[in-house]
């Protein structure tokens, strides 16, 4: 009876989580497309990926840069969390405003930010020109230098509120007596922050890092709609590259090899982060 209750969910997870992982691995060692039968080719796909595919390396590099933006977002969110944790009027309103962009449809968010970054009439160029920061408008999304940072800005705008909520939950779980006791002992605000708040906040901060990493692996919608991976391959992420390999070029086998690499990278980075945090992130998630 118990198993009957579990069966539907188990079936879905086996079919759409476990089986795909295994299938990816098998597919990555094959030469296969819907048009001809599979042939075992060993490591050839991986050979091509590592030694003969500049786009793969570009996409990997962009994914790592995207990941590297997470600490910036988390630092900003930490500042915000401290501010909205203060005992002030209207703090719920501030929290709502900052969080509001998180649950929105990312396709729409991408269109909003395309419009903000528009070279002729986007608000950002308008402000920059009005302040005299630039003489001619910057084509943010068509520029090799600016496209990736622009996408990252849009991503931070959308995810900032979520980091803030995670950190705020962490802050609120710290007993106020600890800080009060330290204050009585003569510790200043800065000292209290580094000696009490930060160490106790570590699980929440590391959880944010894990989420940020996952984010760099999953931000398909934003990149696909904002830039489509361009100009050239300037904003190509591993996830958009996998999609294009699979569904634009019908190279399922090679896309599977890139996916296996992508997933192995994700798991190892998460494991390292978890180890660094003293297995705290996992503990918090299981709560």
């Amino acid at each position, binding site marked *: 009876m118990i198993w009957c209750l579990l069966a539907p969910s188990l079936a879905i*997870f086996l079919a759409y989580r476990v089986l795909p992982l295994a299938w990816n691995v098998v597919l990555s060692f094959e030469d296969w497309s819907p048009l001809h039968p599979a042939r075992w080719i060993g490591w050839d796909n991986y050979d091509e990926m590592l030694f003969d595919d500049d786009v793969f390396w570009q996409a990997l590099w962009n994914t790592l840069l995207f990941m590297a933006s997470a600490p910036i977002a988390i630092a900003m969110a930490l500042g915000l969390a401290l501010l909205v944790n203060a005992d002030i009027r209207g703090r719920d309103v501030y929290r709502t405003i900052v969080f509001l962009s998180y649950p929105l449809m990312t396709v729409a968010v991408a269109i909003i930010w395309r419009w903000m970054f528009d070279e002729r009439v986007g608000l950002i160029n308008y402000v920059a020109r009005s302040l005299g920061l630039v003489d001619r408008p910057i084509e943010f999304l068509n520029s090799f230098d600016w496209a990736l940072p622009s996408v990252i800005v849009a991503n931070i705008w959308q995810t900032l509120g979520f980091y803030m909520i995670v950190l705020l939950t962490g802050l609120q779980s710290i007993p106020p007596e600890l800080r009060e006791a330290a204050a009585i002992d003569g510790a200043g605000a800065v000292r209290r922050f580094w000696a009490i708040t930060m160490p106790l906040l570590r699980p929440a901060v590391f959880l944010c890092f894990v989420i940020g990493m996952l984010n760099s692996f999953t931000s398909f919608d934003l990149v696909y709609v904002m830039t489509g991976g361009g100009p050239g391959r300037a904003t190509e992420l591993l996830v958009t590259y996998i999609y294009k390999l699979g569904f634009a070029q019908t190279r399922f086998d090679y896309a599977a090899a890139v996916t296996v690499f992508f997933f192995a990278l994700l798991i190892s980075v998460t494991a390292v982060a978890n180890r660094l945090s003293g297995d705290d992130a996992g503990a918090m998630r299981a709560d």
Partner: protein
Amino acid sequence: MHRYPRWPIHLALLAISIAMLVPFYWVLKTSVTGENIFSYPPSLIPHAPHPFYYVDVWYYIPFARYFLNSVAVSVLTVAANVTLNAMAGYALTRDFAGRRVVLMLFLSCMMVPFQATIIPAYLITGRLGLLDSYLGLALPQCSTIVCIFVFKASFEAVPSALADAARIDGLSDWGIIWRIMLPLSKAAVATNVILSFIWSWNNFLWPLIVTRSADMQTLPLGLARFLSYQEDTTGALYAFCIMVLAPGILLFLLAQKEFIEGLAAGATKG
């Protein structure tokens, strides 16, 4: 603790709030005037706002069709999530051989982002004959691990004497879930409904992969397609954006508490 002045905090939060809201304002303004598209410098305050771009949307694209598809897929997803997650969540509160294995499996599955499964997921859905169908669109999201754990936590808080008494009176497990557990877990149900709705409503990658015909496209696909046809040349694009965003924003403002608690419980997208 009233020693520090409040105004710098308010000032900082006000500045951040404005920065967060400005993109909404910019798009809302364009959707009622369209003037930014043709003029420089852009005006900061809308002149002569009109609703015509909102009307245009209905003529440019089959908005009603996209909307219907999105609603159908979301209703299917939400109904399946509440039912299947409640069943699985209840099962996990019981003792049975293999419980630890199932828990481990669920926790490991949480580590697998959907994006890492797209190629086989497409092939599997094809073998099931579900490409380009509502069921195919909904199926991978029909049960969510985070939401199973939300139910599990809520069911564990129900006094076990209640379930035991019901069982002695001859109620089946199925009856216990529907007559006792769910009515006592309103907050968990709300969290399940909201999270699964938002994930389904916003989903883009999976519909992009499984839909073939224009008739099966959902709102996010319609939005992306509209962008590729029109580029940024009409205010209707931004009116469309606002129309698509409005339900999500409304739902979020109404059920903020459940939404945030659910996310904090799961902390990762299932």
